[in-house]
């Protein structure tokens, strides 16, 4: 067997066993599911769902405190088991049915950042008390469910001289994502979403691995900022597909937290009805920007730039600029570069965060800024933008209009992505 002491057991050893009424000693039904409370660190078994059997037979809820004895794979003896059928089966405030929620369903393994399918549940047993401690996602779990673990394990030992490896995921790293009935309640019950600990890029991958309903469920359990970040990391096609199913109100919240260029890409591909509904819910200035950028051709700098950047006047001191960086750090794409503008808003220089930190606090930026700023125009082709990045080793470039006023910035990542898409689509046959 596994390396665990014998006070561990599996859900598959309990599901389906006969339920004996303690008073009469007669069998009244079978265990079809177990209820667990989510108040503690590990879910504690608080009841059993029993059924008379047959197609859609009567079900009843049996509180776990009534259980007299539990013999694995044999029988469950409980007081009042016969009377339990007199009441409607109902779950408590914080209870879930663990078989229905987990068996054969997908969960997110926070530790391994991936989606896995649950074969069985691993329970800790102390006298009559049971806790859910692990999700069993290994082959042994699968064989146990099929009821042929014993012979298979024996054969495996015979051939490889080691027992089969169990694969468990601790409850601490489990995020359920079932889309069964009452799932909205489940998202609330597992109170803080463990998913927000993940890197947005990992979250995006998890999103891609899931079905439509599960994506929405997970999205509901995340705050706007986390969701927007993860959303941004997904491939555009998957993002559009997902956006189509998200309610507009929520989508507006997400879009508000996204970089402007990403918003434009998304909006450009949404179905018309969805697009209009979304734009109605966004702040007016954002809508104006989106509409402006939508007009720009997809192949020029203007279409991939971000409109949130830092800019100051020539006479601002280093200390003032630093204050401004702090104040706007949340809003802008890059805090490392601050662009210096003259009274006509034309770009005359750039200062880096390093310069600001090392310059005397009262020195005006005009004194230490770099005057020759490499820049691209709104209508510079994105391939040329990428070339400039390669040549100069910059991470961010400013985009200016005909009169030299800064309109936005492009990061190296955006530039590479844009070109890569183009290069790839040119290599492909016309779709």
């Amino acid at each position, binding site marked *: 067997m596994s390396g665990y002491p014998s006070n561990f057991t599996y859900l598959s050893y309990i599901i389906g066993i006969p339920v004996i009424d303690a008073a009469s000693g007669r069998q009244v039904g079978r265990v079809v599911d177990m209820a667990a409370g989510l108040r503690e660190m590990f879910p504690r078994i608080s009841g059993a769902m029993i059924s008379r059997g047959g197609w859609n037979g009567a079900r009843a809820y049996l509180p776990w405190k009534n259980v007299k004895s539990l013999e694995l794979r044999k029988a469950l003896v409980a007081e009042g088991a016969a009377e339990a059928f007199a009441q409607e089966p109902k779950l408590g405030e914080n209870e879930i049915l663990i078989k229905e929620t987990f*068996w*054969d*369903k*997908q969960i997110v393994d926070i530790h391994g950042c991936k989606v*896995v*399918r649950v*074969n069985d549940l691993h329970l800790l047993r102390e006298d009559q008390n049971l806790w859910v401690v692990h999700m069993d*996602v290994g082959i042994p779990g*699968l064989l146990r*469910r*099929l009821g042929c673990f014993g012979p298979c394990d024996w054969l495996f030992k015979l051939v490889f001289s080691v027992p089969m490896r169990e694969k468990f995921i601790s409850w601490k790293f489990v995020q359920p994502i079932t889309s*069964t*009935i009452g799932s909205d309640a489940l998202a609330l019950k597992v109170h803080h979403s463990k998913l927000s600990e993940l890197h947005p890029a990992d979250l995006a991958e998890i999103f891609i691995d*899931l*079905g*439509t*309903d599960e*994506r929405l469920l997970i999205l509901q359990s995340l705050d706007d900022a986390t969701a927007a970040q993860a959303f941004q990391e997904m491939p555009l*096609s*998957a993002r*559009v*597909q997902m956006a*189509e*199913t998200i309610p507009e109100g929520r989508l507006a919240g997400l879009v508000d937290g996204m970089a402007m260029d990403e918003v434009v890409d998304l909006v450009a591909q949404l*179905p018309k009805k969805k697009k209009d509904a979304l734009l109605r819910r966004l702040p007016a200035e954002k809508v104006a920007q989106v509409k402006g950028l939508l007009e720009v*051709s*997809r*192949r*020029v700098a203007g279409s991939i730039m971000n409109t949130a950047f830092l800019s100051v006047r020539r006479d601002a001191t280093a200390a003032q600029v630093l204050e401004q960086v702090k104040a706007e750090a949340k809003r802008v794409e890059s805090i490392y570069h601050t662009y210096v503008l003259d009274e006509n808003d034309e770009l005359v220089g750039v200062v880096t965060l390093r310069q600001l930190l090392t310059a005397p606090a009262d020195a005006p930026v005009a004194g230490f800024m770099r005057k020759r700023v490499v820049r691209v125009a709104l209508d510079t082709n994105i391939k040329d933008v990428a070339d400039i990045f390669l040549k100069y080793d910059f991470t961010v470039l400013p985009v200016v209009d005909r009169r030299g006023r800064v309109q936005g910035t492009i990061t190296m990542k955006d530039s590479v992505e844009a070109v890569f898409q183009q290069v790839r*689509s*040119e290599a*492909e*046959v*016309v*779709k």
Partner: protein
Amino acid sequence: MSEAAAPGLAKGFFERLKERPALRNLFIFLSILGPGIITGSVDNDAGGITTYSVAGALYGYNLIWTLIPSFVALFVVQEMNARMGIVTGKGLADLIRENFGVKITFFIFIGLLIADIGNTATEFAGVAGSMSIFGISKYLSVPLAAAGVWIMVVKGDYKVAERIFLVFSVCLFSYIVSAVLAKPDWHAVARSSLHPQMHLDSDYLSMTLGIIGTTIAPWMQFYMQSSVIEKRLKIEEYRYVIWDVLLGCVATVVVAFFIIVACAATLHVNGVKINEAADAAMSLKPFAGPFASELFAFGLFVASVFSATILPLATAFYVCEAFGFEAGINKKIHEAPQFYALFTFIMAVAVGIILLPHAPLIAITIWTQVLNAMLLPVVLISMILMVNSPKIMGEHVNNRFQNWVGWITTVILLGLTVMLLIQPALPILKKLFG
């Protein structure tokens, strides 16, 4: 989507797209095209071509009528798959596992695995047979084809593979030329398509079941659904998907029709008996000329390689999906070891069977078909149950017509299978109780 080189031109093109809905729809349709067509083409694999050729040689134009119900059933089933894929974003294997539990899943998939190893062996038999027409030994053609397929899948890129497959699909139309060269009597074709003559002997029944069974194979439902997901289609694009599915079904049935016609016009008229597709290609020579025969063989070769790629791939994919292993052609070998191991295993066993001297090919083909026929109702029933569940499909559940066709298809297939299975037992029962 790629755009024209000059921005001005591109703008003009997209302006035109915006103004002309018909053009725009065509454009969107072309970008969605793929899953249905490819599935439809894979469907006419070596086993299918064998069945159609034998049907044409044995019964002439008599069995053409079966293509009409086959077409309706195929279309309804594939459409359900496409819809489920788009709405849930999940594969059929995933859904079966989640809604019917692990035991049913296990039985379906063990059955499918065995059936698909048999199917893949049939494909390689097709490669061997078609290449022998060109005088190439099977000990050369089969390992080479298998190695080519393996490298394309393991080292290749799905996008490239999909393109190659689409080109492959066009090659299947070589059968039309073969059929025309056979100079069939088109009046007789039309007559027997519209006024079918039914027989109730076991050979005729098994041939009918064979045609329907080869047109709707269990693994196709899984393949169709996962390729729809792979394309990341939106619900908005659903109406274009229907056209893709329809086109795929039409392609399947059209190719099947011309194969039957080609064999009926030549072999049936002259009373030639055949056992497999390669025999059909051989026997065409004296009646329709060497060119028709070679075209037939070429079509068979393309179809076999094509399906020998998709079948093991699809099988490995959905078995992994059902049991929770990483899978997908876009994953590296170390990321999805079980998937690649299974794919290689299916290929190896299939090639091994074919390269055995005196391999019982006919028996393998027949048993594979029987397994397919037995699994199909199980898969169809689970599909119809799920596609009608509002919990899974929301507002996109089946309408009454779809349910009727779905259930009728399932019942007919079940009935035919049962009849076939008890047919040999009837005389024995008569003796016992007669």
